[in-house]
């Protein structure tokens, strides 16, 4: 009972991290049909830049902002200079981002070396807090849930309540028509790409506080984002939340009860979803 409860809590908190990472991915895909396979690289960039900022300023909030902003700038540059010209050619864009991720991984390795980094969390977030039944639970993992909910609400408000959000939704529905009524779709696209990149950069700082950051994490978070949004449905924010929950729970409950094949479980869920609903639980055909 205690184990199940703990594993579920762990699953939910891991899902929170997965959601923050995947929300940027799904936003970018939803708006632009760009499968950004350099998403994991942006995660690394955000985390490393955040680390630099923290080393300079000693401030965790500044590190969060720095990671998000840095990743956003890199993301917008990628979109503006390399991706926008291939609008509609999704395979080409996927390939370009693969090339970028190879280069980025190597350059980051040159700059930051192969060691693992971890953030010094503010004292108030460190340690564990008492909880019924399970005894204690890490504070930062609870904070993670809060952050994920905050990201979800902020994105929801942005998408549902602002003119920019109306443009994003209209662009998901029919980007050509959106252009035909005078909206500068390329600009919106670059901004959305920047927003998606900012989210994953933010996630990089958060993730390397909860876990750690090292070369190779890029591929890991790219894969987890892919799995999460494919399960939930590409381009859907609630879909990403549901997908993250499913995958996070599957990973942790699997690790608790049948560790040998737990790592396969999330991929099996994904293939099962694909076989049953090829566009994900809440997705729809492009």
């Amino acid at each position, binding site marked *: 009972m205690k184990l199940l409860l703990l594993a579920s809590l762990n699953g939910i908190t891991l899902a929170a991290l997965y959601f923050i990472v995947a929300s940027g991915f799904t936003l970018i895909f939803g708006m632009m049909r760009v499968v950004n396979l350099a998403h994991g690289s942006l995660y690394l960039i955000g985390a490393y830049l955040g680390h630099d900022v923290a080393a300079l300023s000693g401030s965790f909030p500044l590190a969060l902002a720095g990671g998000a902003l840095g990743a956003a700038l890199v993301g917008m540059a990628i979109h503006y200079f390399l991706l926008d010209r291939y609008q509609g050619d999704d395979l080409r864009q996927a390939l370009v981002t693969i090339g970028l991720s190879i280069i980025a991984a*190597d350059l980051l390795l040159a700059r930051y070396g*192969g060691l693992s*980094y971890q953030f*010094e969390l503010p004292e108030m977030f460190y340690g564990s807090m008492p909880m019924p039944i399970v005894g204690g639970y*890490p504070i930062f*993992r609870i904070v993670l849930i809060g952050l994920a909910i905050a990201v979800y609400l902020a994105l929801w408000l942005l998408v549902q309540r602002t003119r920019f959000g109306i443009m994003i939704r209209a662009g998901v529905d029919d980007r050509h028509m959106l252009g035909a009524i005078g909206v500068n779709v390329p600009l919106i696209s670059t901004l959305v790409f920047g927003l998606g990149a900012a989210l994953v950069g933010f996630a990089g700082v958060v993730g390397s506080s909860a876990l750690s950051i090292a070369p190779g994490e890029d591929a890991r978070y790219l894969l987890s984002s892919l799995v999460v949004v494919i399960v939930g449905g590409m381009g859907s924010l609630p879909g990403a939340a549901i997908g993250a929950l499913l995958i996070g729970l599957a990973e*942790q409950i699997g*690790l608790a009860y049948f*560790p040998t094949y737990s790592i396969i479980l999330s991929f099996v869920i994904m293939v099962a979803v694909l076989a049953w609903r090829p566009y994900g639980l809440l997705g729809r055909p492009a």
Partner: protein
Amino acid sequence: MLSRKLRCLALVAGITAGFSISVSAQSTNIRIGGLATLDGPFVALGQEAFRAMEMAFEEANYTAGGRKIDWIKESSDGRPDVALTKARKLIEQDKVDILIGPMSGGEGLAIKEYAKTAPTKTFVNGFSAAQETTLVSPAANFFRFGADGAQWQAGLGNYVYDTKGYRNVAVVAGDYSFGYTQVLGFMSEFCAKGGKVIEKIWVPNGTKDFSSAIARIPNKADAVYIMMGGADSINFLTQYDQSGAKQPLILGSNVSDQTVLSAKGPFQRRLVGLPSAHMVADGIEDAVYKDYVAKYKKRFPDGLSSPSAPFYGYYVATKAVLAGLNQVAGDLSGDQAKFRAALSKLRLDMPAGQVSLDENRQAIANIYVTEVARAPDGSLYNKVVKVIPNVNQTLGQPREAFVARGVPSRDNPSCP
């Protein structure tokens, strides 16, 4: 159509010719290949490996047995396939005489098998520590001057049983052969003493969030033995610390390595006092060793706070090659038979003690039981609490009996 294909061919031929010439311009120098990982999960270790070779070569002034040494580096990414491709390139294209490497267990097994197909060359293991590499069907031209993963844990089981008083231990370890090997090394002593390993939790490679594995650790365990790869162990330690778990830890060799101790993170405060064991320890109180550390720090100011175990592994391997070459005065004729004979008989005095080889060309060496301690400058290091001299591959047991117990696996050995 024709002209295009002709030009393609001409291009290929041109490249071929170009590279062939660059290689055929052979000198009388001895060519030594270095193979380590500069890509993939073991990248931090690979950087250390090349530093080690560089330092050893510089100490010898890039000369051995009166001949100059050409050093050719290749990098793999931890995959046996890639290691093999690179080894082939070093041997067949770059025409190295001696290959030093590789880094990790699976790669080591692949290189050992490849060594059998290149009997005129000599292979000296870098840091890979899989037991089977030299225990099961060894290659006559493959030498390992470092202890294997099971040897590394010699003395640890006795130490935690006798000194720390642990009786029931839970194991959380990486679900791959190196994990099994280390656990075997730990358990063979600990179980023989009468200790119990009440739960083994094998975590898949690539797991980053260990929280639910931590949740499975039974309350009645006196201590938790942990063993996983560098970056993963940092995640584990953080999550273990944050989970509020109170049981003390016993560290596998990777976990107490400098690459982990030097990493920045809040988990560090948890580490002080934790026991571990390895073929080298940065707290060795010995003038030769201190000199070695000082040279490392001087040569690599951007390196770790003290040389890591992979550094030591490659350093010893390179030193052994140089010593062998000196003994035969650089004579590699006769398909290197003389050189290999010299290697087999070497008794090397290394910073962490003397190294010699058994009949399978596997190292017999000192093992250091350590506890993590904080140095005056604030950095963490492994303080030596016990030295186990001349540990051999069968951990002091008769070879037949040791081999008959089978390869280490999830369930072998077992003492619940």
